[in-house]
């Protein structure tokens, strides 16, 4: 496709956009953990800068343990960075705010709350009246196909269901910036595609800014405007790949040969970055 090939030129290390103001702007972010006992430090993220435009959908991929969750948590304001700044709409943020909502890697549901009450949790905190909260929650319960499990406690939900509650909880807050850490990892292909589709629809409608971590390259390509590839720990950005597939997208876009091309590109970027770690035995 000529369109696709033409766009492909735009790809490369973050080109300076003349856009007015990024929604989320991360500058020279450094994250390291200190073990108070042994006194050793583990550097998780090293000097990462990243600008995300309003309404942009950005995905981070990288090896296990490379620092993706750390990065996301720092953006969420849940982790104190050891250096650098994070800005939302130009204002530096250090703490969590109602402008952001997080889908955690672990479901982290409140075990004493039912599905419904877990999903209204964020809304409750925000002080939204109960009726409205329940109404909103129901919408996302439906989206997550959990209608039958509204009154189940987390301990009675399957792993995938728990993850869907976790997702619905964040979506229900309808934040300006959505931060998602492997939101679909525990889901089967069909449920996953269903939710991907729902997410796409939602995003097209509301144009939220989204930062997502995933291990599924096709998922990254299907959903996002840009895929960021992190190096192994400490994470630095080794590649940014602009996904210029036409919008609105539907799962059919996967049939597009350019889709495969993009997937390959992400794949090889990860592979290259991981090279130093990958064992000779199972080079791919």
């Amino acid at each position, binding site marked *: 496709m000529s369109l696709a090939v033409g766009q492909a030129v735009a790809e490369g290390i973050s080109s300076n956009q003349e856009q007015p103001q990024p929604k989320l702007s991360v500058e020279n972010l450094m994250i390291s953990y200190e073990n108070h006992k042994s006194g050793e430090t583990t550097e998780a993220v090293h000097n990462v800068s990243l600008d995300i435009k309003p309404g942009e959908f950005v995905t981070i991929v990288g090896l296990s343990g490379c620092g993706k969750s750390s990065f996301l948590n720092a953006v969420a304001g849940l982790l104190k960075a050891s250096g650098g700044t994070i800005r939302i709409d130009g204002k530096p943020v250090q*703490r969590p705010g109602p402008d952001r909502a997080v889908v955690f890697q672990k479901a982290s549901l409140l*075990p004493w709350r039912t599905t419904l009450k877990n999903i209204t949790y964020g809304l409750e905190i925000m002080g939204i009246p109960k009726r409205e909260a329940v109404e909103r929650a129901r919408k996302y319960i439906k989206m997550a196909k959990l209608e039958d499990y509204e009154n189940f406690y987390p301990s009675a939900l399957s792993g995938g269901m728990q993850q869907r509650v976790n997702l619905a909880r964040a979506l229900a807050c309808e934040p300006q910036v959505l931060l998602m850490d492997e939101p679909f990892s525990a889901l089967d292909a069909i449920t996953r595609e269903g939710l991907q589709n729902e997410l796409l629809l939602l995003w097209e409608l509301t144009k939220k800014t989204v930062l997502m971590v995933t291990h599924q390259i096709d998922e990254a390509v299907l959903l996002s405007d840009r895929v960021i590839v992190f190096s192994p720990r400490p994470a630095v950005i080794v590649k940014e790949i602009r996904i210029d597939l036409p919008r609105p997208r539907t799962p059919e876009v996967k049939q597009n040969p350019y889709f495969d091309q993009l997937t390959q590109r992400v794949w090889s970027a990860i592979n290259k970055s991981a090279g130093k770690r990958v064992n000779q035995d199972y080079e791919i």
Partner: protein
Amino acid sequence: MTKSAISLTERKHRIHKYKMVLRKLKQTGISLSLGGGVILLLLMIWEIFSISGWVKPQFSSSPTRVLNKGLEMAASGELWKHTIASGQIFIIGYGLAVLVGVPIGILLGWYKRLNQAFGPVVAAMYTTPRIALMPLFIIWFGLGSSSKIVLVFLSAIFPIIVNMVMGMRSIDGDLTKVAKSYSASQRQIFWTIALPMSVPFLMTALQLATGRALIGVIGAEIFGSKAGLGYMIMYAGATFQTDIVFLGVFIIAAFGIAMDRFWFYLSQRFDAWRGND
């Protein structure tokens, strides 16, 4: 959905409900009969000992003697007078201890610096023999109910504080993170995360405090009382009326058992979310 289909579902549902109720009753029955059985057994052993004459009744009494005494004193109305007097002291002292102790425990558990500052004072206070300070209490608070309430309060508050401090300190970081991510205030984190998580600690606190408060009531009524179970026990003890001593002890113990089971079932209720096994 035909009418019969609905009624079938409903019937199923009802049958299930009955089953549930039956099962619950059965469970409660087993539980009560087990607990009651052990106590009855102990009482019987006691009775046998006392009938056999191996122990002298003037110091050991016997369940039937206690029961007789109890019926007699209940009939004369004297028992109620004492029970009500003690009940008032208990309720006020215990209530205050809960109202004051829970927040203090939470604050000390929540803010590390506060704990560092006031932890030692609290420790000093809960190891201080109250009985040695009773003369001071009497001088400060008089011989009326104030000094008794203070003693009950001080007896009950420390298990509450200590348990709540530990409860707050063992809160799951992951869930606090969730709350924080929705920019919950400290207050909200407390109500939605810390409190539900520390329910087992709170239950233990309330349970221990009940026991302490009851003992505190008895201890307090030695001083400056004109009625109350502690007064009754002490007076009877001083005049070797062992049946009355044990009657008082029985009433306290029975109340203690009731409260204990109450906290037990309440904590079970709060644990419904833990799932079935």
